């Protein structure tokens, strides 16, 4: 009896629609907030550096249009096709990750080689790897479901692939992407049914490894943790500079913010104000109220994706389910890391805020992922309708 009601109530979330309103509206809202904030944060910067205050606004607009096309592409591609050729995506991403490390191909910015300049567009291979990893791992988990749920080998195999990815990412280095991909892989395997004992044993091992590293390389650890004291005299004009400016932006925002366009921190005080630190400018201009709304939108997006995944799993659409879980975790972890960096909870790592930050690859990938989730939603709807007919 109880079971039935639950089923019905779950079902009522998903009526016969092609697009999920509760997913797309928050995504569109985040994109619009992003467009506004990129414009606000970059105008003064661009008028000095690019002689055109609308330089970044125009480009971000173009990225959003391209992002819609990316959305449609992933929405329309048959899921069976994606599942079948996910290994190809993984290989291609590996090729790009290796290519970026070849001198002359990779672009070095701020000490990291993360970009390939395609002339009209700079591609960030770590971003494509996120997608490829999710697509490939999902198909693996479906293929080897029994092995994964019962044997060590099922657990270890993907770890080997992950190991290669990690090595390549740390060579760039790109710790942010590393953490995002690691979280997605572990999360997906956990949800796919890896034995809990095994899983937590591995997690414990990771924790111990980190602890040993911390103890053995105290100097490096201290430097890494210097972000916790950005206002200390030795950091304030050095490694902590950017963070102090971000924190000041948050503080200045107070409850309701200083108002759109009134940020002072964007006036050359806060570097990267329109990319990785756009959240700080948003916090300054819209205050804690704005932050709460933004967090709410992210909760809606991620929660919605996860529940679509759960619904797919209930309908035995495992590939769809794991993909959705992976995408949800990727977006959630990336957002949390970016927020953590902006607020000084985590050390500064180059990671964008999904849908909001300036950056071509990020927008294309994020909207592409939403396209894929919509595709999954579609297939969930179809399967559900068929079952009802039967």
């Amino acid at each position, binding site marked *: 009896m109880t079971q039935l009601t639950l089923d019905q109530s779950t079902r009522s979330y998903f009526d016969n629609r092609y697009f999920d309103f509760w997913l797309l509206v928050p995504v569109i809202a985040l994109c619009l907030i992003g467009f506004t904030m990129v414009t606000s944060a970059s105008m003064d910067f661009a008028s000095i550096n690019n002689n055109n205050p609308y330089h970044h606004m125009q480009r971000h607009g173009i990225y959003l249009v391209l992002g819609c096309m990316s959305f449609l592409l992933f929405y329309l591609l048959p899921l069976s096709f994606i599942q079948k050729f996910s290994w190809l995506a993984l290989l291609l991403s590996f090729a790009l990750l290796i290519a970026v490390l070849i001198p002359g191909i990779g672009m070095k910015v701020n000490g990291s080689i993360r970009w390939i300049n395609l002339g009209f567009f700079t591609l960030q291979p770590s971003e494509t790897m996120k997608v490829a990893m999710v697509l490939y791992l999902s198909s693996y988990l479906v293929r080897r479901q*029994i092995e994964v749920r019962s044997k060590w080998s099922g657990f270890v195999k993907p770890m080997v692939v992950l190991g290669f990815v990690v090595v390549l990412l740390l060579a760039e280095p790109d710790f942010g992407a590393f953490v995002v991909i690691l979280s997605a892989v572990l999360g997906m395997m*956990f949800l796919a*049914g890896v034995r809990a004992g095994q899983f937590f044993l591995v997690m414990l091992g990771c924790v111990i490894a980190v602890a040993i590293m911390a103890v053995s390389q105290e100097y490096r650890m201290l430097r890494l943790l210097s972000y916790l004291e950005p206002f200390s005299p030795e950091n304030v004009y050095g490694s902590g500079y950017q963070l102090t400016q971000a*924190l000041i932006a*948050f503080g200045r925002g107070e409850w309701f913010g200083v108002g759109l366009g009134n940020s002072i*921190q964007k006036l*050359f005080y806060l570097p990267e104000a329109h990319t990785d630190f756009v959240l700080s400018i948003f916090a300054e201009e819209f205050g804690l109220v704005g932050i709460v709304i933004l*967090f709410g939108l992210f909760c809606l997006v991620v929660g919605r994706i996860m529940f679509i995944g759960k619904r797919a799993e209930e309908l035995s659409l495992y590939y769809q389910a794991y993909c959705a879980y992976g995408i949800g975790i990727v977006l959630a972890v990336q957002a949390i890391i970016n*927020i953590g960096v902006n607020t000084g909870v985590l050390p500064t790592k180059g990671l964008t805020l999904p849908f909001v930050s300036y950056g071509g690859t990020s927008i294309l990938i994020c909207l592409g992922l939403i396209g894929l989730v919509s595709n999954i939603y579609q297939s969930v709807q179809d399967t559900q309708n068929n079952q009802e007919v039967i």
Partner: protein
Amino acid sequence: MNKIYVWRFYFVLVVLALLLSVMFARALDLQVINKEFYIEQGLQRFQRVEELKVARGNIVDRNGDPLAVSTPVVSIYADMRKVKEKDYIILSKMTKNTISYLKEKKLKHEIRLVKHLSPEQAEIILSLNLSGVYSKNEFKRFYPAGEVIAQLIGFTNIEDHGQSGLELEYENYLTGIDGAKRVLKTRKGAAIRDVQMIKESKEGQDIQLTIDLQLQYLAYKELKKAVTKLHATSGSVVILNIENNEILAMANMPSFNPNDGAQRKGYALRNRSLINQYEPGSVMKAFTLAAALESGKFDDQSIIDVKPMRVKGRSTILEDLRYYGKISLSTILEKSSNVGVTKIALELGDQIMWNQFYKFGFGQSSGLSFPGEVTGYLPNHEKWQEVQLSSLSFGYGITVTPMQLAQATAVIANDGIKLPLKLLKNSQIMTAAPQSVMSKYNADTLKNMMFQVVARGTGKKAAVENYTVAGKTGTARKVSKKGYIDDQHVASFIGFAPVEEPKIVIVVVIDSPQGKSYGGGAVAAPVFSNIMQQALPLLNVIPKEKI
């Protein structure tokens, strides 16, 4: 087989939610709980107190020509903590500081790299956009007339405060009040908006002098020529406008260029027209005769025998260059007879002599309050003995400034009326009321006598073509510790023109001219003539047709 791990699903969601909660807690901490700290840190970074520098007032001549002006300049400063090491080389080259100096100052938050550049020069450095390097607008004092009027105007120090001359005297009037305001700035230093006015600024006020730069230049040029040619130690020229006692020129030698800090020292700084006192010698005879006429005991018909005579208290017999016989007052002045004026003085007595000299302004302040100004020395008459009275009558035992001589001469030219001296063109303050020193009749009589001095007597070289001139020469021996020296003199000439309607008074004093000619008639009178010759046409005084 198709088991769904519902608890795992919610476990993941809870983990994500917990992470987000941590972020929210942090945002709450930053934006609400501890916001004051971050707001304060922000203010420290972008709120600046900006000084509103105001210019010091200008000093201009009667026609508005600049004598002292403040020009805007830019000084380059640096917050060395923010200057990048790689910029040291270019910074050192552009600002002419050594690299080691820059390294030494590495931790200073504000050092001045270059002082007082023109805005164009400063822009070259600022356009490099070096981090930590910024500029401040300041003002620099400039004296367009340079050495021509250096001692009167004076100069300011590096902080723009008056150090001497009028710059010192009118410091409070010329100095503006710098204001200050709180502003928000971008990291590049551009002001975003004003927050609060901390102190209102007030512009420094201008001063317009009665000086006529053209006449000043003329006086200085002629004085410099004479002092240089005669190898004299110093000299002064004062020109007064008789009608209102406005000071038209006040030139002094030696002089200096006030725009060059290295020259601002020594005797050249002395405004000798006002702060040098000396024994005037024979020019005083004009004022002794004024006393004679005013006493009523003498008039233009009086005849005096100027036979050499003994004066009580004097070791030698008092005599003139030669014995002129029985002569009139006019001839006494013309020949500059010491015996003649001594006889008059002894006849008048100390009371009358002192009173008359005092009324002319000797021994008194000029009323200009110029820094370092002296009053000269007019001895108390109760102690005068015969020898002192005699010396006084021909200008010894008394000290005067060139300005006092000019003012006293102007009294004779101005029908016996003494007007207060005027140096500020628009000043409404009368330092003293006009005073009658002698009657118009007696003044006219004296004028004619002085006219004869130039026409026939010792002052022939003061004559000016096409104009009538009245005057008196003076040659005083200088005093050393051992007494009067025979070969060091102060040569002077006082006079005015034209005699019928006097326009200006010129006083020329030349200290220690070297060579055979050293007397006032030989040395000072030609300077007077040269200046008067050029000054009268400049003042639109119509020349008399030649007869």
